């Protein structure tokens, strides 16, 4: 396997609503800062790949305007997935594995505040029999939470404690949206949002963009003092129907983690994209994370959830801990689809 590393990462602050800037304007400073930090102002990347969703933007071909932010001139070798930037990173990683590229720029962006996100996500379901019922994303997650609670596999207290931990960690993340010191007991006194979920159990809606640079072999060593080498990256999707899969565990995360080789060593840091507290618990279990792993030092998705960039940002945040020496081995997780239907696991080493 060719050595490919994450050598750069920038993001915009996660905001409930970016009132003035459109997606391109949010993306431009993110890309510029990344280029500047790596001394890549004039140089072009061998490959560019992005992730975004037309339905967040409310228009077809929304990703096309993203090209304006990277100054695609002279023409670039560029691709796009209608998925979180983490999968765009996967495509770029593959391109580098086949020797096509030595450097790649990956970015993800979205302004979910423009629409009604939970309802929009109902369009991800079977259009013939499920979408017409308009089950919003929070309700679907709530169904899963109910299963877990009733089976005694999680408690509301545990869920609240996860929210407390993430928000506390987020205090040290200037880009996070929801942060502060909270008490599980007080959170549990708040009313239910969609039973059994409360507000704190749900990730916020966030506008934002993030970008990552990958580099191979010696190029990576030139660009970063301590490259965050991708030792394994894998993703798996489960059938969508809630009734045909086990919602009390995340099998696809387990499989992806195994393929990415997560258990070949200790995991110092893990950054998770789970948008609900009970799902965060499931992902932690699927990844086999123990007490020795620092989970979500950035606050994770529960502190800032810019769809289409959130997974990519987890990879970036995990890489940062490698760069700053606070971790030797880190794991990043991205998710897509209702109730953790699809999951990506990336293992980084310093």
């Amino acid at each position, binding site marked *: 396997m060719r050595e490919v590393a994450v050598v750069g990462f920038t993001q915009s602050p996660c905001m409930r609503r970016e*009132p*003035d800037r459109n997606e391109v*304007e949010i993306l431009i400073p993110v890309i510029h800062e990344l280029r500047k930090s790596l001394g890549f102002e004039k140089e072009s990347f061998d490959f560019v790949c992005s992730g975004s969703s037309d339905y967040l933007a409310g228009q077809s071909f929304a990703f096309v305007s993203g090209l*304006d*932010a990277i*100054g695609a001139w002279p023409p670039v070798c560029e691709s796009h997935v209608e998925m979180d930037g983490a999968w765009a990173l996967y495509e770029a990683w593959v391109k580098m594995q086949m020797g096509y590229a030595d450097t790649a720029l990956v970015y993800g962006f979205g302004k979910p*505040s423009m629409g009604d996100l939970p309802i929009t996500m109902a369009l991800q379901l079977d*259009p013939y029999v499920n*979408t017409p019922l308009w089950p919003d994303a929070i309700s679907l997650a709530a169904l899963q939470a109910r299963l877990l609670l009733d089976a005694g596999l999680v408690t509301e207290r545990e869920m609240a404690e996860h929210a407390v931990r993430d928000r506390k960690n987020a205090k040290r993340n200037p880009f996070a949206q929801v942060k502060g010191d909270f008490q599980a007991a007080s959170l549990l006194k708040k009313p239910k949002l969609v039973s059994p979920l409360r507000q704190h159990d749900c990730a916020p809606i966030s506008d934002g963009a993030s970008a990552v640079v990958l580099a191979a072999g010696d190029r990576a060593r030139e660009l970063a003092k301590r490259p965050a080498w991708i030792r394994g990256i894998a993703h798996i999707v489960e059938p969508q129907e809630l009734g045909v899969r086990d919602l009390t565990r995340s099998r696809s995360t387990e499989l992806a983690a195994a393929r990415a080789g997560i258990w070949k060593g200790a995991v110092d840091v893990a950054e998770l994209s789970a948008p609900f507290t009970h799902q965060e618990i499931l992902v932690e279990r699927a990844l086999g994370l123990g007490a020795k792993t620092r989970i979500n030092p950035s606050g994770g998705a529960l502190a800032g959830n810019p769809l289409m960039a959130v997974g990519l940002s987890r990879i970036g945040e995990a890489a940062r801990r490698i760069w700053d020496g606070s971790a030797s081995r880190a794991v990043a997780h991205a998710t897509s689809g209702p109730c953790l239907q699809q999951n990506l696991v990336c293992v980084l080493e310093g």
Partner: protein
Amino acid sequence: MSEAKEPLELLRIPIELDYTFSAGQSASRFLRGIAEGKLLGQKCPVDGRVYFPSRGACPQHGMPFGGDTLELSDKGTIVTYAIVRVPSENIPLELPYIAVQVLLDGADTVLMHLLKAKLEDVHMGMRVKATWRPKSEWTTSVGNILYFEPIAEPDAPYDSYKEHI
């Protein structure tokens, strides 16, 4: 409900989603200008080329427009055109109509718009001027210009616009 029915073949499922759209800082500058009848071009900070209309950044260089604007005249040259005979949901015009790319004087990019002229008269290089809606109807939209109409000026030489096609 018990008689035999034809199997269901097609199902119409209406989808309605509302979006609150924000034009962005750069486009807002140009839109606020047009609300006052001003056609504001924005200059690329790298090569000074004038973009009209403008979005977030100079796409060639990936640089945001810095607010350096230039007021353009509403006269221009037709760079290219098409006579459209196909109706479309979003265009409430009588067929056939002429869709054009207009290079406004002073601009370095073309504006896609409509031309009110005889079908047989339209040609590349034709000089045109904007016909505006009544001022009372102006909003933040390129639609303040109803269409362009020909003016009595000699055609612009091909060389003056050929790089735009």
